[in-house]
């Protein structure tokens, strides 16, 4: 058996030297080839890789395979029908490197298929040369395998579909519940186009941002094109078209605070949270914002957090403060 411990460092170096990267999808595909008990066609690799990473497309698989082949990491072998199979190349292994012949023999032994002639030829030419085809009913074998695989895949997909359907249903239910809430706000403003900004303010206070479905719904209800709603929502500072963090940190950037050093305060918060002003942390916990005046100039430079004002907190105080909320 082949000692199938792949030297990733070696491969990585190889790829890097050629100006490429060992991306996540490339790594996934390499792993699949590595772990395969038998040779795989591009289709097989695609199906297997989907389980690991649903984002991989068949084109990615082909491109990756072509790339790997170019670097000599894997080998493309033509057998039987016109479908090529892929197997690790010799130099993919760190220690003992089996010869090409041995490798192919091992592979074919495992799959129970005999290959007539392999000696002295590079794999790329195998299919092109006349007479180097598999013996036996190779097509039948492939068909059964294929059917089994597709069946298994179908089962997985059906399960996933059901799950997605359920999730969507829950989401829809929430949205439908939402519409009740939206209707209430709309009625408060008498479904009047002139009150559009007032409605949006109420939605913003309700959701902390303006979800798309809300804007859609409002637009259809009061008969205003979505483009116009977006025009207003993006013009006014108070509206957000993206979800906001649970807690907002508002730093006053008014003139009075500016001359008292609000920029330094902002920089300190940026250093602690590692986000830019206007951004939200990855866990949607904090959103950092600046405003033009909080109107408590005597405290400047001042920041508003959790409905409390803090005057020029130091880095340590900030860390303590932000760590104190969950």
């Amino acid at each position, binding site marked *: 058996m082949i000692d199938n411990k792949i030297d990733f460092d070696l491969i990585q170096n190889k790829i890097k030297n050629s100006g490429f990267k060992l991306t996540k999808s490339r790594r996934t595909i390499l792993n699949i080839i590595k772990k395969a008990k038998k040779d795989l066609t591009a289709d097989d690799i695609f199906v297997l890789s989907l389980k690991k990473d649903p984002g991989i497309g068949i084109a990615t698989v082909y491109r990756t395979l072509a790339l790997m082949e170019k670097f000599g990491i894997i080998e493309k072998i033509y057998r039987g029908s016109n479908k090529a199979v892929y197997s690790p190349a010799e130099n993919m292994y760190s220690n003992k490197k089996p010869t090409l012949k041995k490798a192919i023999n091992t592979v074919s032994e495992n799959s129970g298929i005999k290959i007539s002639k392999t000696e002295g030829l590079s794999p790329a030419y195998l299919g092109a040369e006349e007479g180097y085809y598999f013996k036996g009913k190779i097509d039948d074998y492939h068909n059964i395998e294929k059917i089994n695989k597709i069946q298994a895949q179908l089962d997985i997909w059906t399960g996933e579909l059901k799950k997605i359907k359920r999730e969507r249903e829950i989401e829809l239910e929430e949205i439908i519940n939402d519409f009740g809430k939206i209707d209430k706000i709309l009625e408060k403003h008498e479904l009047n186009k002139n009150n559009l*900004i007032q409605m949006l303010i109420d939605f913003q206070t309700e959701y902390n941002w303006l979800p798309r479905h809300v804007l859609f719904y409002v637009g259809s209800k009061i008969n205003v094109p979505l483009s116009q709603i977006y025009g207003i929502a993006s*013009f006014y500072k108070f509206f957000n078209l993206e979800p906001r963090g649970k807690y907002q940190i508002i730093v006053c950037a008014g*003139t*009075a605070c500016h*001359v008292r050093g609000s920029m330094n305060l902002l920089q300190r918060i940026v250093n602690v949270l590692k986000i830019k002003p206007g951004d939200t942390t990855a866990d949607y916990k904090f959103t950092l914002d600046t405003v033009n005046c909080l*109107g408590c*100039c005597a*405290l400047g430079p001042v920041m508003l957090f959790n409905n409390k004002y803090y005057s020029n907190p130091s880095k340590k105080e900030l860390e303590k403060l932000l760590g104190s909320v969950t």
Partner: protein
Amino acid sequence: MDKQISKINSLKDLENRARLLQDELNGKTVISICSGTGCKAYASEEVHAAIEDEIKRISKNDPAKIKNIVIKRTGCHGYCERGPIMVIHPEETCYMGVKKEDVPEIVEKTIIGDVVEKFVYKDETGSPVFKESDIPFYKFQKRIILDSNSKIDPTSIDDYIRIGGYQALAKCLTGMTPDEVLKEVKDANLRGRGGGGFPAGIKWETVKNASGEPRYVIVNADEGDPGAYMDRSILEGNPHSVLEGLIIAAYAIGASQGFIYVRQEYPQAVLNIIAAIEQAREIGLLGENILNSKLNFDVKVHRGAGAFVSGESSALMAAIEGSVGEPRLKYIHTAVSGLWGKPTNLNNVETYANIPKIIKNGAEWFTSIGTKGSSGTKIFSLVGKVNNTGLVEVPMGIKLRDIIYKIGGGIKNGKKFKAVQTGGPSGGVIPEQLLDLPVDFDELDKAGSMMGSGGMIVMDESDCMVNIAHYFLNFLADESCGKCVPCREGLRQMIYIYERIMSGNGRVEDLKMLEDLSVILEGASLCALGSTAQNIVVTTLKYFREEYEAHIYYNSCPAMVCKPLIHYTILENKCSGCRICVKSCPVNAISGEPKKPHLIDQDLCIKCGACMDVCPEKFDAVIKRTGILEKVTLGEKISEKVT
């Protein structure tokens, strides 16, 4: 205590009610605590809760003791620097910086009519000043609008009626014709307090004479100027005065619908004004047939969603109509064709708050305050590097020096005064040599700045004028709606030039270019946002040109603000090698062994100043320098570096 709500039908009703309410408080001690946003930031709500708790605790043991005590939450007192502020009426004893732990002591002393000296304002000699109006901050002011802020609970219409509120309205509706009201306002020469300074009476007349029905009246409370919060204080602290002014305006003009456009960012103000409208409606001061005068008038509150340009008249009206708040060309004034194409009167909060006072005391009284061209008082928010931050109301014509030194108590930390910026982002800076300038609309205009809504930002020697101008331009570019090219592109180009100058890459021709751009902006912009944006550039160039030149010619920022032009160094002879700065440096730019002088790697340094902050005072080894590196030697003064 709550009595049945009865509708008010005449001036007499109002006066009776006021008398009744006054009697109610006779002989009682009122503990009032400021609940303006400034004091709330100092946790005044906790103090208020503590007082209530304390009163409750005492009443359990001895109810008789506190039967003469009334607690009241009032609007902003103005002296935000010393918040939270507590005033005991009728003695007017003023306590400052009260904490909730201090409450029991104060309550206890107040019950027996004593004062707690330690929370009272101390003057320079250290002797206590008990009365609020004797404190220098208040002594030099003339508070005709803010005065009632500290006496009434903004959420109670009764409090407003007690001090004679709505009597001016009743006087108008029952004894004056709309023309007489208009004449009174015109005679008073009340100029728009929102910044423009356009006479309100003339505007009202235009709206009145314009054809079209219905007419609208709007309160502009979209106070977007950074560092200015007088409108918010009035709306929060005394919403009824604005409402009363608005109803009087509606009567004089013949409007049937009013709007109050207030920023969503002022939640307290929104709540208070909505509550005030409801209360006024309840007792029949809004709605149909107000005070049996056949005036039908109602008010709606429109919340602004945060756009500076929406404070401009045509943009504000577009926002009320429900569209994007962009200004339009005003070859036809909004007074003639405003909201939905109808005649519309738009005035600032402070302007409306002045109206009841004028009607009540007469135009003559009003013109006796202030200067010839600008009568009455103006509220300024005195902020920045000044000792007494807060809202000040002064008669027009007062000297800038008096505001900053007498009321404001001089510059913080004993530094040197450099300039004062007035009028918000649209205004300019006023240097020290013009400090004796009398403050009114025309004089400020002459100096190249403007009254604006009344922001007054004091700057000291550690503020870089180039940086300040850049800050304002950035603000304006951010808030520009982008409709007209001079404003959108002109501001952007100016910012590029400023960034160049601030990073030490300024060019000799840059100053000329800034001046040229200023001329274009002033002449070709669609609205005031663009045409006044150059004020800050022109005034800083006029009064602080040498500072620009220092940036361009000597790569030096005299105020040590522009980061690319400053650098921190450790003085070898002073550094003892304690390694404190090494540990505090966020980018590991400082190297050095213990007991040996450390060194800052200038390439790595991000100029955060952390090393300077942590260096122990006894060593004081880290210094900040500016200018071209080689030219700077130890002990050299900044001015020497520049020349």
